[in-house]
């Protein structure tokens, strides 16, 4: 990661699990989403996700923000609305998402849940 750390001037270790200690402790598998780093809406979503998911690590990469959480990641409509100060449909998440890993276990009008099932 030294190349990109040097290039972005950001510390990426927090965003990745593969330091030796983390690898051993990786009994709880991480799930995560990559979001476009684009404007106010994305910022509001990131803040809401950080607040709702204790243990979330947020990493900046060129053009995108990566959020990783051990086990289960939840995006709550109410929290995002609070951040943005306006109505926000969960479908709107599709304007921000770039990629994810895990399984989308739920996507309804109130929340989106990403986790591994088995």
């Amino acid at each position, binding site marked *: 990661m030294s190349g*990109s750390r040097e*290039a972005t001037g950001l510390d990426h270790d927090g965003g990745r699990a593969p330091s030796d200690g983390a690898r051993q402790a990786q009994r709880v598998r991480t799930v995560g989403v*990559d979001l476009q780093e684009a404007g106010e809406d994305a910022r509001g979503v990131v803040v809401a996700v950080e607040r709702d998911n204790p243990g979330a690590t947020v990493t900046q990469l060129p053009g*995108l923000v990566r959020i990783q959480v051990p086990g289960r990641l939840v995006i709550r409509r109410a929290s995002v609305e609070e951040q943005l100060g306006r109505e926000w449909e*969960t479908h709107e998440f*599709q*304007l921000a998402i770039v990629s994810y*890993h895990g399984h*989308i276990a739920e996507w309804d009008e109130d929340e989106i849940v990403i986790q591994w099932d*088995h």
Partner: protein
Amino acid sequence: MAQKLSMKQRYSALTRDLDWTPDYVDPARVFPYTAFEGIKVHDWSKWEDPFRLTVDAYCKYQAEKDKRLYAVLDGFAQGQGHLSLSDARYLNSMKLFLQGVTPLEYAAHRHFAFLARYYNGPGPRFAALCQSIDELRHTQTEVHTLSTYNRYYGGMHSWPTMFDRVWYLSVPKSFFDDAMSAGPFEFLIAISFSFEYLLTNLLFVPFMSGASFNGDLPSMTFGFSAQSDESRHMTLGLEAIKFLLEQDEANVPIIQEWIDKWFWRGYRLVALVAQMIDYMLPRKVMSWKESFELYFEEQMLGGLFKDLEFYGITPPRHVEHAIAEKDLLSHQVYWTLYSFSYAAAFTTTLPDPAHRAWLREQYPDTFERYYQPPFDRAAAIQEGGGRFFFQGLPQLCQVCQVPMLFTEPGDPTTLCQRERVYRGERYHFCSDGCQWIFDREPAKYVQAWLPVHQIYQGNCGGPTVPDVLAWYGIQDGDAGSTSARSTTPTGSAGTPKPRWGLTMPVRAITEAYEFPSRSRAELYGDDQLVHVLWKGNMLLAAAATFRVPRAMPWAEFLAGVVDPWAASDPDYRPGTGRSWTLDGRPLEPRDADTLADLGVGHKSLLTFDT
């Protein structure tokens, strides 16, 4: 309104239950393609689509995405944005993208329409239909984005022709043709699962972060905008595999084989991305090795496959070879492209000192030891006013169609050669993975349109390099250099064909799925193809393939065919090859023996060292 449906109920009511069981015609005639692969589906309604996107919501959000994207494109064109790139060399990766990836988006568009027609269940049909038009979106936004660059730079002007014709683009083309020609379930595992879920992050995120990092705002914008659709497509892949695994236990071994096949097929395809990440981006985002570890080893092997264990699915066959190659892959592929770049529509240059330092740091175990030496020698040639090229055409893998540049597992200095004789004809493979894929369905892979063989059959515009480049649509200025020698084949008579080998039936809709090899001996008249490998020479990325008369005497073969090619290495002294082997057996040729006398058959492999 007294009642309001939840998103889940509304989605279900709008998308499900739209179909009915036909009784004016035989239902099996309405859905004729979902039986022959052996997959059993008992209840199509068990299909889950977590996105729950209805047509009205789809149009609303997609229109919003495109509004934002085209605003960026318009602003970029107006502001002469192409002048703000970090370095024009960066555009090589976008040339490769337009030539090799955009056509895959289009192929996906067309074939998801096939799934949207022929799946028996309306749930997956609707998901496939959305994906079909998403993929059309990606094709078009990519063309529109790169159209601005096309006005100022080479390598993009003839992308559809190039995709159909150019040698290195047969790698992505054959990959997708393979998936499209398969049945509807295999296509889904191939594209939605293996390509979109397993490998998409390796393919796209580095491209897009690279774009962002190198001042290419439009490509970053279309890339991330496309990726927001990809996340739906990834979901389709994951839902698909879980659905099929849950429907019937008998599906598990079939799907495991498809995962095994398509992991390896996809992994070989992303070899082109590996070199792009490590060599083509002037400003580096992360190394291939690092993205492989993160996106594949950690997220997929460590995450996804742990989940799939539940169903009895194991990590893909040959994955250990992919892991072992992570220190080698990008260097081997880039060196090959450098060696052949007189026939490519992009530029290759030698890594400068800072770039080499970065490569040493990223690849401490391999770069300095194995890959810096050829770059040093090429640099010396360049200082002398020359340019290193591989003076011939490379031997191609019958399955992945990449030049046979890969090395034996555990031995980075020995090129890997695998071979099968099927119905009397010899076929070569770059790896155990590709050989295994061939063995499953030889009747399919004998049809491969291998660019090198097609050139030698005279199907690619003519016998010389300039003829072929013109036919490819490559113009001056697309590549770094166009100075390379012509390879003109000649003509002569036949050896008896050996009669041994495997006959594995292909599971097709009819028993009669039999096609002749597109490289069969008779297509070469009195000539034949011969592969020649200089063992242990790291300057020559792969064995070379030649078309030569069977009646050609050995001395003439050496002086007229082998020597000019081996002279690609300036240290080669004509006639110094020794320890010859023919198809793995020692060979002691005498000058007057003809190739036929010596038992050199069509597509035989000759090796030597010095």
